[in-house]
């Protein structure tokens, strides 16, 4: 078992260096899916100065992407409950590989690479049982499906690589069935959690959402250098009784963060993305409230800005970036946001920093 599941252990030594690099596709620092004015969908490579490095077409609306750490390859996932993902060559947009979810599974729209880029991990639903699965795909053999492990919950959504080479999985807790689309089948009994897997793919910690918050669905996560995981929730209960929507996972488990009075309600109980800017500040987007919150985990202070339809957030070398559905790319640092560019695009839910996922 252990040898077969060595995929998370430092395979770095054996990994072959890719023939091409991200520099060959215009040196993008980030990726985001977007809708073009024509209504078509595409994946864009973006630079920190707001310029675009490349555009490759997508066959349908994307959700998140996973960027290979070194080769200019991106995995674009169809939106939940999609059954395929495409490995795109970002130099010319051609589809290098198509990943089909195994019979009886569907993807949740997120994936992550191992640090050396040798393996891709995908969040999946085993439809018949509703169990959450992490699929393992081997890049060297043309993204062959080589293994799968439990996500240790229902409805795994975002998956990220931890600084120690393990994985963190946001188990949203909500069971759905492709026959009924996104209809939520188990709101009364849902129990979301954050699962931490070690480098052998074994469960090293399971942080449950406390009982009174069991309808707080964990969807999006981000990790900082010390291994603290920012957790962004989506509240499924009474919208006027919204609890804390951000938690930070650390040695003490999940610590829920209370924002200022009424802010969770203004966020409509919904966080779209979370992203650490450094070891201390977390950027949180609220597309439904049109709010971007920069939370300082050291002081507990937060800087709130109004940004219509903001959703994608990610760290950058100078602080952070945020994208919105109006085609804008914003630089975030300290208190001030600066709009770097406005494109005739609608940026989709997530902004991915190359090298981290």
């Amino acid at each position: 078992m252990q040898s077969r599941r060595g995929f998370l252990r430092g395979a770095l030594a054996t990994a072959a260096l890719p023939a091409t690099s991200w520099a060959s596709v215009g040196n993008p620092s980030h990726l985001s899916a977007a809708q073009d004015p024509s209504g078509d969908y595409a994946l864009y490579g973006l630079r920190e100065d707001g310029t675009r490095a490349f555009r490759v077409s997508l066959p349908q609306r994307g959700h998140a992407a996973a960027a290979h750490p070194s080769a200019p390859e991106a995995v674009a996932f169809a939106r939940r409950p999609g059954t395929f993902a495409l490995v795109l060559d970002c130099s010319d947009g051609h589809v290098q590989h198509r990943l089909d979810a195994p019979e009886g599974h569907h993807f949740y729209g997120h994936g992550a690479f191992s640090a050396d880029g040798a393996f891709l991990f995908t969040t999946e639903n085993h439809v018949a049982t509703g169990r959450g699965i992490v699929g393992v795909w081997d890049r060297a053999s043309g993204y062959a499906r080589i293994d799968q492990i439990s996500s240790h919950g229902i409805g795994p959504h975002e998956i990220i690589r931890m600084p120690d080479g393990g994985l963190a999985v946001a188990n949203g807790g909500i069971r759905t069935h492709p026959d009924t689309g996104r209809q939520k089948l188990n709101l009364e009994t849902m129990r979301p959690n954050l699962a931490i897997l070690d480098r052998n793919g074994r469960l090293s910690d399971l942080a449950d959402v406390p009982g009174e918050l069991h309808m707080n669905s964990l969807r999006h996560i981000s990790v900082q250098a010390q291994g603290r995981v920012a957790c962004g929730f989506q509240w499924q209960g009474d919208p006027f009784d919204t609890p804390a929507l951000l938690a930070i996972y650390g040695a003490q488990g999940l610590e829920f963060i209370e924002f200022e009075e009424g802010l969770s309600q203004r966020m409509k109980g919904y966080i779209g993305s979370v992203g650490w800017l450094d070891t201390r500040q977390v950027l949180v987007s609220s597309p439904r409230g049109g709010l971007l919150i920069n939370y300082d985990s050291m002081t507990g202070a937060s800087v709130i800005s109004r940004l219509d339809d903001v959703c994608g957030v990610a760290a950058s070398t100078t602080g952070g970036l945020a994208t919105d559905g109006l085609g804008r790319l914003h630089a975030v640092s300290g208190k001030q946001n600066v709009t770097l560019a406005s494109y005739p695009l609608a940026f989709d839910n997530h902004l991915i920093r190359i090298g981290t996922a």
Partner: protein
Amino acid sequence: MRFVFALAACLPSFAFADAQAVIDQHITPGYAKFAETASQLAETARNDCGPEAVLPAYHDTFDAWLGVSHITFGPVEKDGRGFAISFWPDPKDRVAKGIGRLVSVQDPVVNDPEAFASVSVAAQGLNALERLLIEPPEDADYACALVQAVSTALARNAATLNQEWPEYAALMVSPGNARFQSAEEVDRAIYTALSTGLEFLYDARLGRPLGTFDRPRPRRAETYRSARAQRNVVLNLAALQDLTMHFADTETPETMLHFETALTRAEALDDPDFSGVANPGKRIKIESIQSTVRELRIAVDAEIGAPMGISAGFNALDGD
């Protein structure tokens, strides 16, 4: 390959909206009226804190608040001020908890307006005042001090909004600043206030008491204690209609038709506290207001949002 597009080049013209008229004829006078009534309220309470004396001033202040309660941008965004004025819906009854905490220790904070601003926002506003006037705490002296403290807090908050509003309005009139980078953003902010105002009317003011046919929730009606749930719907509709008339430069016949229908139905209702949600004959009338508001939202979207190039957010509408 580098592409940079100017935003203005790719969006339809937005000559349809008149932000200046909204500011001058809707928001500015709305805040002035709210500040004036709240100031009267505080003065009334100072002279006579009894419910009979204060209730009319409470109603006047609430009426004035409904003229601007849908304005979600501006000084009201700061420090949860909106919640300090009106704390509803309140499923955990934090109004009662906030008041109870003060009453149980006879907290002298009621005598210090500066310090009172830092008590639970649920205990500072119109909903707290309603509770104090309709279900007063036993200790009459402390109840009186609380009525005065809450009235004063309302007057101070209303005065702050009224004072700070012009500075914010200036940012809207001359976009190209950190808050509003373009006229399009100004229009979008106003449009969002209109559409979220209608959403709140539908989901909260009408939807919460309606609940479901099998389980109506009359005690979830806004301010049912002071029997002004119906009045709030009427005034909320009137304020949103006024906003729309100043905002839209084009003809909006469907929108106006649905506003008129909804207003006529809401005014004709004889159900001040919405207890009728539990009575099938009355319930159907409240449901008909709600379905008109649904039509209204669709019309606003089509007649105002779409021509301005504003649609519900790509991410806001369809996330995951």
